[in-house]
């Protein structure tokens, strides 16, 4: 088992510590290596919160997050940072590329804290940029590229350290149909070719349907959706 979430609870609190919204409540999830799932749900249901907890960007109020055999929810910030760097790849709705850097420079950013062989990183970057079809654009800056190209660069950035788990938060949310379709394909291809576990949080059923499983997040808990409408349907 790659990832296990046990009895996860998360609430948002006011400045004075009072709970004003319970987002996740006794949530459980288990995920195998190479699996790809989609998490859908209405706005404000806690999809991004759940993704942030899985990605070690946030910590749960209750419960445990176990990655492999280790309980990461008990780790300190430095260890979590290392964990994110080595094991997790993030893709956001907005690419958040650094405008002052070229694509090449942007995708290499996660390699810097690693202190590993840069040549290997450059090779991986080249391979990924070629795979994603933006190799020719590598010396251009985000301001000079389309949204789809930037998002593909964000995918390369997420994959550059060869993570075990790829987390995508509304990856197609800011893209047009064509670019969204392209990115969906890219993500599923990566999952299949590199056997990287993929969790996608999305409103797009088109993207969700490309996953092995679709979970519906409602009332703070995940429920496996038992049917997959073929049409594009917003949940």
């Amino acid at each position, binding site marked *: 088992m790659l990832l296990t979430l046990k009895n996860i609870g998360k609430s948002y609190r006011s400045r004075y510590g009072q709970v004003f919204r319970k987002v996740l409540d006794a949530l459980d999830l288990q995920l195998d290596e190479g699996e790809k799932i989609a998490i859908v749900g209405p706005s404000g249901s806690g999809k*991004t919160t759940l993704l*942030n907890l899985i*990605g070690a*960007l*946030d910590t749960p109020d209750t419960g445990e997050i176990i990655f492999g055999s280790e309980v990461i929810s008990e780790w300190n*910030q*430095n260890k979590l*940072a*290392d*964990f*994110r*760097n*080595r094991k*997790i790849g*993030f893709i*956001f709705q*907005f690419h*958040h590329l*650094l*405008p*002052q*850097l*070229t694509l*090449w*420079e942007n995708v*290499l*950013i*996660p*390699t*810097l*804290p690693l202190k590993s062989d*840069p040549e290997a990183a450059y090779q991986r970057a080249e391979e990924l940029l070629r795979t994603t079809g933006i190799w020719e654009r590598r*010396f251009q*800056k985000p*301001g*000079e590229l389309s949204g789809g190209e930037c998002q593909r660069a964000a995918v390369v*950035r*997420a994959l550059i*350290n060869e993570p075990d788990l790829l987390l995508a938060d509304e990856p197609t949310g800011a893209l047009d149909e064509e670019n969204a379709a392209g990115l969906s394909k890219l993500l599923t291809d990566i999952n299949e070719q590199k056997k990287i576990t993929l969790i996608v949080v999305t409103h797009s059923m088109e993207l969700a349907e490309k996953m092995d499983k679709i979970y519906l997040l409602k009332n703070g808990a995940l429920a496996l959706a038992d049917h997959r409408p073929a049409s594009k349907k917003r949940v």
Partner: protein
Amino acid sequence: MSLIKLVIASIRYYFKSNMLIALGMAVSTAIITGAFIVGDSVSYSLDRTVYYRLGNITHSITAGDRYFSSVFARRMEQGMEYMTSAGLIAEGMGLADGGQLRLENLQILGVDEKFQEMSIAQREIFQLQPGEVVISENVAARLNLDEGDMLLLRIKKASLIPLNTPLVSDADQTVARQVTIKAIVGREDFGRFNLQATQTAPFNVFIGFDWLNDIMDLEQKSNIIFISTANNDAKNEIAEKLRRELQIEDANLQLQYLPEKAVWELISERVFINSSLSEKLLDTLPSAVPFLTYFVNSMRHGDGDTPYSFVSSMPDSLLSGSEIIVNQWLADDIQARPGDTLSMEYFEIGPLRELEVCQTEFIVKEIIPVLGSYGDESLVPDLPGLSDAGSCREWEAGIPIELERIRDKDEEYWNRYRGTPKAFISISRARELWSNRFGDYTAIRVSSGAADEQEIMNLIKNSTDPFSLGFRVNELKKGGIQAAQNGYNFTQLFLGLSFFILVSGVILAALLVIFNLEHRIEQIGSMAAVGFSGKMIRKIYLTEGMLVALLGSLVGILLAVLYGKLVFIGLNRVWQDIVRTDLLEMVIRPLSLAEGFIISMVVSWLVIMLLLRRQLKFSITQLQKKTIVGHRDWVVRLKQGMMVALVLVAAGLLLWQFFSGKELNSTVFLGSGAMLLIGFLLMADLRMLQTEEKPIDRMNMRSLSYKNLVRNRTRSLTVIILLSLGTFTVISTGSNRANLAADAQVKSSGTGGFLFLAESTVPILKNLNDPDIKNEFGIPDSLEFIQFRTYDGDDASCLNLNRVTNPRVLGVDPDALKDRFSFVTVTEFLDESDPWASLEKDLDDVIPVVADQTIIQWGLGMKMGDTLHYVSERGDSVRLKLIGGLANSIFQGNVIISADNFLQLFPSSVGTSFLLMDGAYENRDQLAEELNFAFRDFGWDMVPAVERLAEYASVQNTYLQIFLVMGAFGLLLGTVGLAIVLARSIYERRNELAVMLSAGYRFKQLFGIILREYNALLLAGIASGLLASVIATLPAFLSGYQNVSFSLLTFLTGIIILNGFFWIMLVSAIQLRNLNLLDALRND
């Protein structure tokens, strides 16, 4: 929705950023308006000083070293619309506490009851009884005196005869009296009375006019008439009255009838009759016969030797220049007969009583009876101590008398005939031998048959131009007001001193405006997209900006008042060295506030307009996509060209300075430093542009930091500019602080290598380098003296805030100063191999003069080659041409001419009262003790030369201190700029930083990246400022006169760097701590 509503809504929405902009503008307004307030206040205070020092006195009449009848003052006011008061001013010194406390340079003021009316004194204090004095507060403070206490006053005694007049004794120059303090007076009671245009308070001792006359053995004599009139322009009227009212006794002349000779005889109380007067009189009355009587040491013939005799003159018609007529007594004494050769020996008396024994020979033409048509005692002038002595052994002449040479028969002659001349030579020969700067004749006689008394009186009066005798009408009030109004312009000074803060404030405000516009760039784009014209958008943002500027400027006016108050606290306390008065009062003139406000608003308008134009030139798409990048190639090429040109020109100038062999010119270095600074800033800009454009092949943390650094070049460059300006100011100021002690003994330094400088209240009449005189005073032979004659004027040094036109003139033998001091500016008239010798050059109608360059430029407001105008003792207008400027020296405040020229201008000048002394540095303490003891009765005010130089340097250092404070404040603004840019930058980059965190970066690593970025900016700013400032102040580093403290420099640089580091770390830590990762990722 109207425009104004939109604008107000925007101001409210962007309240924080607008308030920051307003604050930046408030700082600039405060600096500009504050400078106006300081300037106004100093100017007002100097005007008030004129009131405190002169009261209702508007004019004065003085007559050089002459004393005239006090009745003259009363005659001067008869029939006129002004009031006069006769005064007697002397110098003195005070001793209290049994001699433990001593104060030189007292201004002893003999005043009468009318002085009270002219004063501003609130109390009736100037009606003084014998033995009573009123003293100013500063005297009381220095001598620790209270009302009713006793004070020993030693006063320089007035002498009707100039003290260096040949044959006049120099004994008893001072007189001492124990006095009681009747009152201690402050400024409200006229305690600051002063005739000199300066804001510093003199040490005043007021004393009853009659009693001061008694003390000095004078009879109703005065040397000044105070005049109070409602008309400040009454000078001509007073001068005319002076011409009409001057009587011969006021010119120290006496007309007496000698019945036995049936002649009218004109003599002078000053022994010698002023030559301009005698020339005019002899021209208008040809029958008048001049006489010149002198005291000779010896007359010899064969073995015969008659000591100490008076010899007089006869008209040229009676004997030739080589002939002498002797009386019977002398002929018998030395066995001389007509045709014999008579040898005469006499003293020729030099300017400092140097005695030169001169010898000359005559052929005896005739022998005449002791008493006869020419032989009479009345030909001998009234020489105190000589002509009035009871016997020969009681003589107290101004020359040494060998009493052993006096024989009984000489005593007998004296008893019988007194000083009756024993011989006569022709008047031409007599003039040739004995005429001097005080006059050509000792008497002029007119036969009673040629003119009656009234006719002669009229002739004398008509021949007597008071102004050629040294009388002057001084426009005290008018001159004082002019000096105050033209004094140091503190507005300019403080604008100059705070220039960098001003620039920093404007840059900071501009930076904040840019932030604001950048923040709203999409808004601008949207407005353009929905059809707002560029003009309309500009109008909206300009209105908003100007409303913010209005608020900032109004706050700035309030800050200006606070700033002014702080400056005045500084000037009255910490920085008192530059104002030397506690009289500074702050005034706030509405006009100045309005000026500051308007200037500030205009600057704001310009800044906002320029930035709007810059921002709005981009396309709508660019604005909406926030993709304003790039630059124009020609701009880059221009910047490259400018950078290369500036660096090359600066380097060329520096090389030229070093290899031309000329004096290092600080302006050239400052200019080179400024050019290099701009060059460095351009270099930084271009370097950032290069970094921005060049892709990184091999990524690492460092390259990532540098890429981030150029994310917004304008901001980064602004931070560098702010920091470099602040550093430049602080370091160049610190480097210029003069530390003079190390070079005090160097002859080319500002001390001239002299050990001591002294000023004496009682002039030194003798040549102190003469071994006999040294022996007389008990001073070591090893000491070398340079003695200066002085003609009083106003203090033109940097200690005086008033603009003076006639500084004190020093007269010196130029040879004595050879190879001393350094000249920084020269003219064609100055021989650079021996500059001092140029003071003796004959420049036709002008007299060469040198002065400190700083004083020429700032104190006098003149330049090299300009001329100063003085009136000579004879009333002639003379021009002194500035031929050389000295590096900062102990002569500050004075102008220097040659002693020969000095005596031509001011022939009655008495002795020397400004002295420089050179001796063994190791023995300086002992020498100081000996000198202070030797000249204790001369009002000897001696300081080590380096101390005097340091006193002047303290003014410069105080200005630099203010500059340093301002520079530090500017640096603070730079740091604030850095902090704002940093905080803003982290805020704007929060998504990027969050992504980096999500990609596994630790907070520590992000912190490191930010630190590296901003430390690079900090170091670039400081390094460019430091390097440029070091170049700009190279003369100070390289000169021998200013010992730059490298430890101070290192300390300042260290403080600047640490301060920057501290703020970068603090702001980064706070901003990163406040960075909410999840919010940042959620929020675009």
